[in-house]
């Protein structure tokens, strides 16, 4: 955390004549009052971290949230200030110093949430941060930053690509569920399916995604299909989604206590009833965990399928690399992270929602 202070001396924002060429760096102090607020909050975080006490958690929360908000504020002020009277093509983008301060704010915030016992305090802090971010986004001049300007230029295409990305990943996970769960059930009933299925699926998992797209050329050509476009992408994504879903279904079913199955059988349940009424609910947490892992994985791999023209946010990243336009790259990468994190969080939420309260949290991995 001491290193955080040093980050302030790193370039805070970059001032560039247009969106491609690199420009001159400015330190945080171009932001005036906002920069001093930021410095003060970082100092607070340092002091709080060094002097542990009962209110340490809450103070860390305040410091972390404050750092994040002050950072956004300072960025906005800097952007507006630097672009005053300059031509519209001028860009102000976020520098390394600002990224590191942002990371620091996240760390402080995390430490705060872990150290705060009160759920109420955490909720209030969360809502306050959201309101603060919204306020700064609306009035704080963030729209003047290069990332926002890039978005303004690309906005219609951006949302198309987000949708494509979701459709690609969703289809991959969907097929993964449709094929993986029955295979997992079969694996728990049959040794051959278990050894062959899990073996093949884990070899597939090992193969780099780019290589997989390339390797699909030959079989697809044999079927008269091209190796470019959405079809090979969905096939590859489905293949990658298989292993986590299939393995977790198998492990979940194999982990069901034999005594429970015996009891079910003793009550006169048939094989199918046993599977649906006893085994499925008990294996469900692990199955959902498998789907979660598959979703996170596939959202990441869907980025690579842009290479073979399947669309998605990967296009922005690769075009950004091709044109050396960092803003474009970030416009693709950041939403990708957001999608992956959202998928992760929502699947964890789903698991909590549907899993029988009789099954302890401890049995979930």
């Amino acid at each position, binding site marked *: 955390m001491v290193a955080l202070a040093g980050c302030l001396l790193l370039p805070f924002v970059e001032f560039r004549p247009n969106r491609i060429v690199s420009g001159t760096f400015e330190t945080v102090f171009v932001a005036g009052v906002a920069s001093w607020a930021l410095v003060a909050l970082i100092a607070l975080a340092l002091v709080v971290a060094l002097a542990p006490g009962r209110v340490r958690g809450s103070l860390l929360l305040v410091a972390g949230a404050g750092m994040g908000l002050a950072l956004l504020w300072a960025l906005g002020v800097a952007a507006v200030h630097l672009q005053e009277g300059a031509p519209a093509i001028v860009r102000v983008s976020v520098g390394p110093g600002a990224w590191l301060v942002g990371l620091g704010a996240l760390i402080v915030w995390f430490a705060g949430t872990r150290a705060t016992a009160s759920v109420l305090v955490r909720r209030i802090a969360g809502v306050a941060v959201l309101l603060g971010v919204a306020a700064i986004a609306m009035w704080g001049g963030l729209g003047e930053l290069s990332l926002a300007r890039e978005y303004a230029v690309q906005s219609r295409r951006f949302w198309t690509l987000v949708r494509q990305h979701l459709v690609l990943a969703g289809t991959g996970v969907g097929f993964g569920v449709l094929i993986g769960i029955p295979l997992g059930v079969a694996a728990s009933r049959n040794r051959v399916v278990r050894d062959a299925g899990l073996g093949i699926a884990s070899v597939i998992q090992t193969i*780099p995604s780019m290589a997989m797209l390339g390797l699909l050329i030959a079989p697809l050509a044999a079927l008269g299909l091209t190796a470019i476009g959405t079809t090979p992408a969905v096939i590859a994504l489905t293949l990658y989604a298989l292993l986590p879903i299939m393995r977790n279904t198998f492990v979940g079913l194999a982990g069901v206590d034999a005594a429970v199955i015996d009891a079910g059988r003793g009550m006169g349940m048939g094989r199918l009833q046993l599977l649906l009424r006893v085994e499925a609910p008990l294996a469900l947490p692990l199955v959902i965990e498998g789907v979660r892992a598959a979703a996170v994985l596939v959202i990441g791999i869907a980025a690579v399928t842009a290479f073979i023209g399947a669309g998605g946010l990967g296009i922005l990243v690769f075009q950004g690399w091709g044109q050396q336009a960092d803003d474009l790259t970030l416009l693709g990468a950041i939403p990708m992270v957001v999608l992956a994190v959202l998928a992760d969080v929502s699947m964890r939420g789903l698991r909590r929602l549907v899993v029988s309260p009789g099954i302890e949290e401890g049995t979930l991995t």
Partner: protein
Amino acid sequence: MILPPRMRPVVAAFAGTMLFAWIVGQQELWASVLGSLFPESARPVYPAATVAELTMQHLRLVGISSGLTLLVGIPLGMWVTRPSGADFREIVSAAVDFGQTFPPVAVLALMMPILGFGLWPAVVALFLYGMFPVVSNTVAGLEAVPRTVIDAARGMGMDRARILFTVEMPLAARIIMAGVRTSVVINIGTATVAAAVGAGGLGDPIIGGISVQNMAYVLQGATAAALLAVVADGLLAGAERLLTPRGLEA
């Protein structure tokens, strides 16, 4: 010759590695096979570098980044499970959990604006991304060591360092190695994508092949990259087996 069961995967992995090294070295073989698969293509083999050269570039990228990952990740995991690092245990775990949801491409993409293009920025990105499974498994492995075993070790008069290195690390070795294996295999995959930011390696013919519409290049790079990943996975699985103490084998 009859091999003990624990040596079998090791020997198989070693033989696989040898075979892979031989295949990679046979440039004419690649040329003739690709030529017969793509008879209409005038140049079925990637011209800029041989398969062996590309593989070496790839291995250099993965070797440096994974090496750094191990050098930093394992000690970091050890440190946060010690009393001196216990304060950072939660935050490191949170960061590692969070980091593992990041798409590898996004990590590469987020690094580029800060570090630029080329080999070294890619090394840094792979190094950071590879840390997540290594740190998380090191922490998990060390925490899975039964408290009672550590209590017995203390009661017999072992000091902390000796407990860590002669009791905890051997017992955690299997889980740590599983994390290393995941990390390296993911790195080999991400390194393929890193060709797009100028890091070289087996991704070059794939990306080059797509941009000039030559599927032979793509297949060449894809086959070599897939083989490399599978062989590395097998080799690390063998190492995992060897490092598992006999008393812990099922």
